[in-house]
């Protein structure tokens, strides 16, 4: 496989944009990425796009085709990837593979989303054969309640407190103040977070990300092409996709087999470990991590499950500020999903854009000092997960 570079990235700011279509958001992000890469639309040889359940795509998930028609139909191959909230990362991996295989020199990866209001109705399918329907109709266990159960167990196992959870939210919003693309750019105090309404005990409103509209794009290319365009490319060190294992103890249906070992997000662990392996790098090499913080709980669980810290150590890192931009293990210096809101299928590409800016040293006041290696990770419905490692 040939080396792959991230040549240009672009983002439409996140928020709620009643007057703009998802295609409008994607156009902004793509034109920014093309300009950043210093290439014209005609130079793009293929498009890998996240397929949205909520917006655009002609009712068939054809979001990449929408983007191509909007920018001008050149005949390029289009790949529309569905992977729940992991779709953006999944599309990035396909774009990466198209370049790494030698099939294309320049590929555009794009994810954009206009979200419906309020909490997401997960599946929309009302049939007794649909697991999500059964979970909601028979029990009424929302996404935040599921996270709440996992978080509550952690509190019992490791003594995690409500203050630990709130500290993560405070850190996220402190970072967001420095990010012009973030939806919420206001700092919060620990008290403000702890006084926000309880959504699903033990998780509060300011500890769960809302939904947003947004888009992100990345132009990736072969080493040969990159060297013609820039002297400071950002490289894809490793990229991986995985799904959940049968016996990880996560009740994705009404039930699961009792796990033989620790309950964990096996899909994310497998994706990250595979990305490490492909990159020939490990946890110690990481300058920063952009992980999927739908809930602050993930910032405690994921670092441990991936071997970035020891078991039960995540709370100590949070207490000591080590997950801040200048800490030992910077997590989500962008402000994360907590500050952006989740535009589901855009998020994997959003992470690639953020990591690229950090690795170039272009992240301004939220810059991680001497950022050399970054990890991005998403997780989505269906047991999907993705991981991407970028390096200077």
């Amino acid at each position, binding site marked *: 496989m040939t080396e792959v570079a991230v040549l240009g990235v672009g983002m439409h700011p996140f928020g709620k944009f009643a007057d703009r279509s998802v295609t409008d958001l994607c156009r902004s992000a793509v034109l920014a990425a093309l300009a950043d890469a210093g290439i014209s639309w005609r130079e793009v040889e293929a498009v890998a796009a996240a397929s949205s359940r909520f917006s655009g795509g002609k009712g068939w998930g054809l979001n990449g085709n929408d983007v191509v028609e909007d920018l001008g139909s050149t005949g390029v191959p289009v790949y529309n990837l569905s992977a729940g909230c992991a779709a953006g990362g999944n599309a990035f991996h396909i774009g990466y593979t198209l370049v790494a295989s030698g099939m294309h020199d320049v590929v555009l990866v794009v994810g954009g989303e206009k979200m419906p209001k309020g909490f997401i109705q997960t599946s929309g399918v009302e049939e007794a054969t649909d697991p999500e329907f059964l979970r909601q109709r028979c029990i009424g266990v929302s996404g935040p309640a599921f996270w709440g159960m996992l978080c509550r167990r952690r509190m019992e196992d490791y003594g995690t407190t409500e203050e630990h959870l709130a500290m993560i939210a405070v850190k996220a919003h402190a970072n967001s103040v420095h990010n012009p693309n973030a939806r919420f750019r206001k700092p919060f105090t620990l008290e403000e977070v702890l006084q926000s309404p309880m959504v699903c*005990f033990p998780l509060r409103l300011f500890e769960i990300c809302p939904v947003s509209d947004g888009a992100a794009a990345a132009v990736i290319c072969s080493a040969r092409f990159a060297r013609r365009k820039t002297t400071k490319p950002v490289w894809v060190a490793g990229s991986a996709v995985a799904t959940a294992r049968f016996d990880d103890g996560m009740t994705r249906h009404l039930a699961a087999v009792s796990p033989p070992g620790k309950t964990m997000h096996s899909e994310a662990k497998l994706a990250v470990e595979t990305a490490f392996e492909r990159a020939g790098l490990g946890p110690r090499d990481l300058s920063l991590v952009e992980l999927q913080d739908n809930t602050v709980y993930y910032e405690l669980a994921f670092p441990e499950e991936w071997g970035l810290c020891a078991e039960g150590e995540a709370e100590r890192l949070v207490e000591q500020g080590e997950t801040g931009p200048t800490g030992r293990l910077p997590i989500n210096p962008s402000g994360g999903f907590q500050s952006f809101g989740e535009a589901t299928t855009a998020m994997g590409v959003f992470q690639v854009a953020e990591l690229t800016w950090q690795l170039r040293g272009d992240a301004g006041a939220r810059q991680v000092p001497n950022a050399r290696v970054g990890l991005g990770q998403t997780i989505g419905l269906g047991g999907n997960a993705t991981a991407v490692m970028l390096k200077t």
Partner: protein
Amino acid sequence: MTQRIPVIEGLFAELPEGPRLLGSRCAHCATPYFPRSPVCHHPDCDAGRIENRMEDVAFGPSGVLYSHAVQNYPPPPPAKFDEPYQPYAVGMIDLAEGLRVLGRIATDDFSKLQGGMPVELIVDRLYRDGDGNDVVTWQFRPAEAAGHRNQGRRKP
């Protein structure tokens, strides 16, 4: 007269010996399933992929709470509940049969819920429908009432 209607047919039953979850077990590799599954989904169980090698099993009533949360806000459709909305607890319960099951936890005092505590299966109201019938679902309640107080409780 108020009738009890299962929220979805075929998921649970109120048998003479008590409430049970209606599941399956693979005759080849013994993997348990809830709800019933016509085939085995264990990745190493080739035999399970041949239909009709699954056996019907009734699971419960005893389990241990793995963890819980409280649904403090009204969940979106297709969830259903009585108005005005009252927060309820949900949990993951490890059954002795090797199955981890999701379910509501029937309790008035969320603060008493603790990982490791014994729970038992019941069938109780989820909501009252437009015809005045009780739509019921499987739930779990702390087993203290049955004399298991403190038994199996686990301190962090």
